[in-house]
């Protein structure tokens, strides 16, 4: 693919996401789609983080812990200390990143199933901690989180106060889509950088990478921190949208779903988690009409998909990068 077609492609995708979809929703009047697409965007940010840990060869089932942590950090700062949401968003991400350094250094020495299972336990630890800690308000959770306020620079309103908008849904849609674009642009850049190549060497053989001078301990932690940062951002935004956060907001089921999103999209493709999230979330929603058979049909399709395409949906692709996946959104 040449440089021009790439730029045109990216431009087209951005236009579809930022202009096309809102216009279509306005025409068709399906306002509920805003909420669905917002959720997909946020979940795919968290899944993108999980994907990065897959990229260094670790199965991460602990993203729910960081999403929950991010949600609580943002919620507590907003509700108890009156900090602006826009400030708490990076703080939540950085907090999760910092915590993941402490947790990551010991547990990243584990591999394979051991790492998978310890991260699974981590999700449960996070949920139980949020139940037990004094500041998190126990099982009742934190509710009535105010909507994000305005951002003004020298009297110029950059972002309007969400509470004054007649309908906050499109605003949240733009917020999460922009976050998602930033996240995946960052991931794409990362994967195609020197760091990305080093990560790939970790995925293939850590001992070999280490023997030719790759600082594997440092790299693993860097990848894990970025992953947890994304989890925290996703969780914090989710808490702001639903205006509440509970210990059960992100559970083991969510952690497993994040992992499934990556698997389904394909572990070898940056845009895999995005496509996987879209397909899983929409598939689940579409099957809602089937009532009690929802889970049965969903799981049957899932099993059939993995039997037919064990390497993910994007292994079906026809050209080089995963551009089609973004297009389909």
């Amino acid at each position, binding site marked *: 693919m040449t440089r021009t077609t790439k730029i045109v492609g990216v431009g087209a995708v951005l236009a579809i996401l930022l202009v096309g979809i809102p216009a279509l929703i306005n025409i068709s009047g399906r306002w509920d789609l805003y909420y669905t697409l917002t959720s997909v965007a946020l979940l795919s940010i968290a899944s993108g983080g999980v994907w990065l840990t897959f990229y260094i060869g670790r199965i991460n089932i602990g993203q729910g812990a960081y999403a929950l942590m991010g949600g609580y950090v943002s919620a507590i700062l907003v509700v108890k200390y009156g900090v602006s949401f826009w400030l708490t968003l990076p703080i939540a991400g950085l907090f999760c990143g910092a915590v993941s350094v402490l947790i990551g250094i010991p547990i990243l020495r584990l591999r394979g199933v051991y790492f998978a299972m310890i991260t699974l336990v981590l999700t449960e630890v996070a949920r139980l901690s949020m139940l037990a800690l004094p500041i998190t308000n126990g099982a009742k959770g934190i509710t009535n989180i105010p909507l994000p306020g305005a951002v003004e620079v020298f009297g110029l309103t950059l972002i309007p106060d969400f509470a004054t908008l007649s309908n906050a849904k499109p605003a949240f849609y733009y917020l999460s889509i922009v976050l998602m674009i930033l996240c995946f642009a960052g991931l794409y850049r990362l994967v195609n950088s020197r760091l990305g190549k080093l990560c790939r060497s970790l995925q293939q053989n850590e001992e070999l990478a280490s023997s030719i001078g790759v600082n594997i301990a440092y790299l693993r932690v860097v990848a894990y921190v970025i992953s947890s940062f994304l989890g925290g951002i996703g969780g914090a935004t989710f808490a702001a949208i639903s205006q509440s956060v509970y210990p059960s907001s992100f559970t083991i089921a969510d952690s497993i779903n994040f992992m*499934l999103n990556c698997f389904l999209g394909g572990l070898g493709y940056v845009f895999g988690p995005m496509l996987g999230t879209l397909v899983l979330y929409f598939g689940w929603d579409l099957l809602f009409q089937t009532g009690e058979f929802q889970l049965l049909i969903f799981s049957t399709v899932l099993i059939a998909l993995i039997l037919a395409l064990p390497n993910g949906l994007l292994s079906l692709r026809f050209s080089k990068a995963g551009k089609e996946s973004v297009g389909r959104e």
Partner: protein
Amino acid sequence: MEQVLANGLYLGAQYALIALGLTLIFALMNVLNFAHGQLYVLGGFVTYTIYGQLEMPFVAALFAAAVTLALVGGLMERFLFRTVLKRSVREESTMLLAAGTAFFLDAIILLIFGEKQRGVPKIVDGVFNWDFRLIMPYDRILIGFLAIFAIAAFVLYMQYSKTGRALRALAQDRVAAQLMGVNVDRYSMIGFALGAMLAGVVGGLLVTITGVNSGIGGPISIKAFMMVMIGGAGVISGAIAGGFILGMLESVGLSVLHSYGDITYLMIFASLMVFLSIRPQGLMGKPWG
């Protein structure tokens, strides 16, 4: 204190039996079977149907649960896991399959047996009472001993039968086992069936005491993962040790930490994380299992 220890032993015997099945499947195929808890639930419901509803003898119900689950396990291996293991580039793809299978079994169980909590009549009445220091209903004692008996039978089977030897060879080195003339496909299937059968037997045993409902599959799987991790993945003695350790921790934790609120599980999970970061392969596991 005697009461706490006895409870721990009783729980531990059940847990060990669950963990044995999971660890067997993991050792043979390197598959983390997310659906293990669902297999347990299925065993419980089969026993409930035959013993509780059709009012046939308990032994027959238990036997039926074992056979059904062995069949389900064998089919899962033959038609799902074997295909994916052969085709996928990364063997982690089996985790997606296992999770999908867990959802599938959950859906089936929900559709067939409903969402109600089900219980069956006691198999023996009466309570063992030693001076009020140790109080234990007779059925719990019986189930505990049955579980220990099943563990012993399983260990002996793995140690001395031809199938057991083949399975252990397969767990040690797949290629070497194949070179020695072990039919890898056939014994993988048998191993998977055996693992599923163990889950079904515990489900059948425990339905007489705690009952069963369709939602407990997931939590049971997670507990089974923990036991396997404590002992070391893929090691039979480790799974037994892990089961008894978790049983004891729960029993002791619930009585000691009772006054601090509901933090037993938080403590168990947190200490497990610390333990594993110090000793990643668990108590008896091979490094990087």
